């Protein structure tokens, strides 16, 4: 029985290589592939139909009011207006950007080129949402990490400068070096250069994902659907738009896959050299992306080895898998040594331990789908996350069944008696099936981070498989197909909204108020000002004990060597006890950066901590820090106040650090807030 996807191919044109006899021959050899169909009688071909291009242009223009709504929501939030109303306006803007384009991209009577243009436009428009939220400077935690990397390279012209925010990041210098290079060549600021690089990477991943999925499924509707579903992963809206190494490496990895596929029939050595360069770029930029690329190439090679009769391109895939795997492991274990402790010691092992504790009943499970650990998220926000997951899981089973029919060629025996096997689609199905399993990690705090970050990878396969249903839905009579396209687009839009609530805390959705109440989620202007003062008056590379949020500004704007993760023993005690003195001495802390907002509110960062996930109150704070914990620095004779402006103070504790002054008997400090 002929499947509907096969039928759809008669209505779709997908093969960009149709002018290439060699490429067309390679295509015909692909297991599971059906014969490409070219321009059809009703004009639904590869090229943009000038008669209908205005619709695409109109939808592109329709995104502008959506972006204006997002900008208005951000402005309301910054000015301290009604946050709930601003969030509603923000989601209305997202709907306006995404939904019309999704409907059009999934509509049957649309050219392939139009779908491609829509996907690129949607990807860039969603990137613009992030830029509108922070138009003047980097504001996300990871962005400061890579800004520090870039600054180090710009200052020294060399690699591996100390990065106090994340030492492992210095050993994956791809993004920092590329950004520093762009700064050198253009004279633009690191911020603008970073935005351009991540924007280019966003374009790259949207285009590559579309073209790869199109090759795998041989349908541009599935390709468009897969990209739309990928855009609905929890990290896409903000995290994947940030200036972070993964957001350059993952698009480059997608490019490697597309390039190998596109040139598998080429024999030129330069093709191989280009592939090696692209693989090296991924390895030099991000560890997990490099491992994921190696695994994907290995699985692809294995799939073709098992299911395919003969193809010389298969050997190249195997060689690249071997090269990528061995080189990324060698770099990880021999060069980027701090990365091992970061990845395993700080992320994977704690998550596994927490899961073990929850499963054995020693710990209570975390509330899943509450992005900020349950702090301050309204009920509807949490329910939206659940709704997105339920929709995905409900659609996954029939999608996997349909994927099996296509991938294994059920009911589609070829004339030679062999069944056509589509190995890449099987890989996509395995990734899709792994998604529900990955969500189990969300019952723990550390596991939640891993589950969230893994969605960037798993949604590539998940999108491909779920989009098979979208393709099936629109294969009917014109009116019904149109209604079904609207329905499919609506479901994906709901997943987009729900995923946004999973990936971002409610209070982090919009930029913070210029005068926030409580402990802020992002770096505040007065902290930046203090950091710049420290750089100018204390010199660079001084060791500071500081809270996690403030450390981002102090390490970049101030160019200081900050200690945040291990700073909690210095801050959380109410007196200048022996443990405080010992912590100052062992960590060689010269200055303490005090932010009195710690005494005004509990942290709303994921994990709910001021300094590190290992501090005693992490995840359980219901009250802010007592004022005495910070006041103790003002009451000891061994610390001198060197900066005092509003809520920010800097204390010089170098006499404690060098042992020339020992704080007297511990006395509880009097409470009180410092004024400028």
């Amino acid at each position, binding site marked *: 029985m002929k499947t509907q996807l096969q039928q759809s191919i008669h209505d779709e044109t997908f093969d*960009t*290589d149709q*002018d*290439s006899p*060699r*490429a067309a021959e390679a295509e015909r050899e692909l297991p599971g592939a059906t014969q490409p169909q070219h321009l059809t009688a009703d004009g639904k071909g*590869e090229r943009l139909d000038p008669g209908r291009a205005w619709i695409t242009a109109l939808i592109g223009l329709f995104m502008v009011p959506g972006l204006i709504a997002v900008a208005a929501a951000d402005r309301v939030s910054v000015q301290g207006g009604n946050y709930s109303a601003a969030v509603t306006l923000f989601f209305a803007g997202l709907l306006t950007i995404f939904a019309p384009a999704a409907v059009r991209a999934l509509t049957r009577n649309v050219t392939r*080129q139009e779908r*491609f243009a829509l996907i690129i436009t949607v990807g860039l428009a969603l990137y613009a949402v992030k830029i509108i939220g922070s138009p003047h400077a980097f504001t996300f935690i990871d962005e400061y990490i890579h800004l520090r990397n870039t600054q180090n*390279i710009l200052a*020294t*012209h*060399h*690699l591996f400068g100390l990065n106090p925010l994340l030492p492992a990041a210095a050993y994956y*210098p*791809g*993004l920092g*070096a*590329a950004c*520093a*290079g*762009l700064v*050198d*060549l*253009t*004279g*633009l600021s690191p911020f603008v250069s970073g935005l*351009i*690089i991540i924007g*280019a*990477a966003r*374009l*790259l991943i949207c*285009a*590559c994902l579309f*073209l790869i999925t199109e090759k795998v499924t041989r349908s541009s509707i599935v390709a468009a659907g897969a990209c739309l579903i990928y855009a609905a992963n929890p990290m896409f809206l903000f995290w994947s738009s940030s200036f972070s190494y993964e957001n*350059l490496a993952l*698009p*480059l990895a997608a*490019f490697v896959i*597309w*390039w190998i596929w*596109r*040139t598998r029939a*080429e024999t*030129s050595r*330069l*093709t191989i050299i*280009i592939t090696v*360069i*692209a693989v*090296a*770029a991924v390895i*030099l*930029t991000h560890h997990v992306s490099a491992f994921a690329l190696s695994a994907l190439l290995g699985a692809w090679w294995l799939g073709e080895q098992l299911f395919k009769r003969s193809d010389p391109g298969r050997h190249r895939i195997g060689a690249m898998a071997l090269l990528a795997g061995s080189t990324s492991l060698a770099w990880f274990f021999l060069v980027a040594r701090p990365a091992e402790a970061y990845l395993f010691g700080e992320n994977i092992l704690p998550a596994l331990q927490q899961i073990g504790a929850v499963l054995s009943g020693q710990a209570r499970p975390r509330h899943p789908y509450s992005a900020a650990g349950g702090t301050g998220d309204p009920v509807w926000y949490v329910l939206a996350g659940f709704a997105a997951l339920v929709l995905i899981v409900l659609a996954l089973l029939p999608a996997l069944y349909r994927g099996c029919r296509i991938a294994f060629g059920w009911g589609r025996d070829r004339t030679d008696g062999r069944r056509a096997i589509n190995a890449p689609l099987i890989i996509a199905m395995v990734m899709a099936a792994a998604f529900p399993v990955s969500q189990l990690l969300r019952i723990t705090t550390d596991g939640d981070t891993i589950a969230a970050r893994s969605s960037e990878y798993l949604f590539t396969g998940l999108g491909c498989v779920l989009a098979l249903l979208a393709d099936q839905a629109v294969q009917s009579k014109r009116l019904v197909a149109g209604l079904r396209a609207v329905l499919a687009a609506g479901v994906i839009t709901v997943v987009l909204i729900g995923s946004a609530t999973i990936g971002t805390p409610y209070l982090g959705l919009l930029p913070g108020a210029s005068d926030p109440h409580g402990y802020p989620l992002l770096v505040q202007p007065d902290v930046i000002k203090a950091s710049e003062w420290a750089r100018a008056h204390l010199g660079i590379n001084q060791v500071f004990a500081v809270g996690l949020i403030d450390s981002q500004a102090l390490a970049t704007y101030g160019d200081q060597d900050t200690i945040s993760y291990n700073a909690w023993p210095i801050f959380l005690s109410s007196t200048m006890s022996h443990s405080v003195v010992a912590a100052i001495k062992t960590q060689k802390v010269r200055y303490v950066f005090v932010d009195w907002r710690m005494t005004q509110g509990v942290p709303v960062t994921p994990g709910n901590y001021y300094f590190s996930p290992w501090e005693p109150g992490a995840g359980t704070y219901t009250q802010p820090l007592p004022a005495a914990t910070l006041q103790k620095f003002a009451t000891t004779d061994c610390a001198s106040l060197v900066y005092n402006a509003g809520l920010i103070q800097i204390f010089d504790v170098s006499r404690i650090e060098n042992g020339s002054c020992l704080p007297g008997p511990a006395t509880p400090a009097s409470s009180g807030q410092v004024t400028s």
Partner: protein
Amino acid sequence: MNMRRQAPLVGTILAASLTMITPLTAEVPRVTLGILIVFFLPGFAATCAVLDARRLSLNDRLLASLGISLGTTVCAAVLLAALPIGLTRASLSVALGGVTVIVALYALFRMRSAMASTMNTEIGPTGPGPIIEED
């Protein structure tokens, strides 16, 4: 016709050379050339050298140019920063510009060889062959 096909490559060579040899102080040309050399020119030259233009769609060409250029920039920047020479404006512009010019020249050479080969096939080494009339 030949000139029209070669013009983008010649333009690539000129732009890459300009990036290398001119200490640009004006902002607009500096930013324009900087962005081109990081995001487009090396990949465009490499794509022309590797793949036959007639078999590439515009999407493929642009995508390959962007991806290869980004990959090349990352590798070149990291390599320079790892070497004693260091990552500076001069070193990176020479590295990226030099690679672009060399690959573009190779692409031009390939293109001319392919054209000559096509002409030889069509006309033959000593002109048109004998006309064989069908019965």
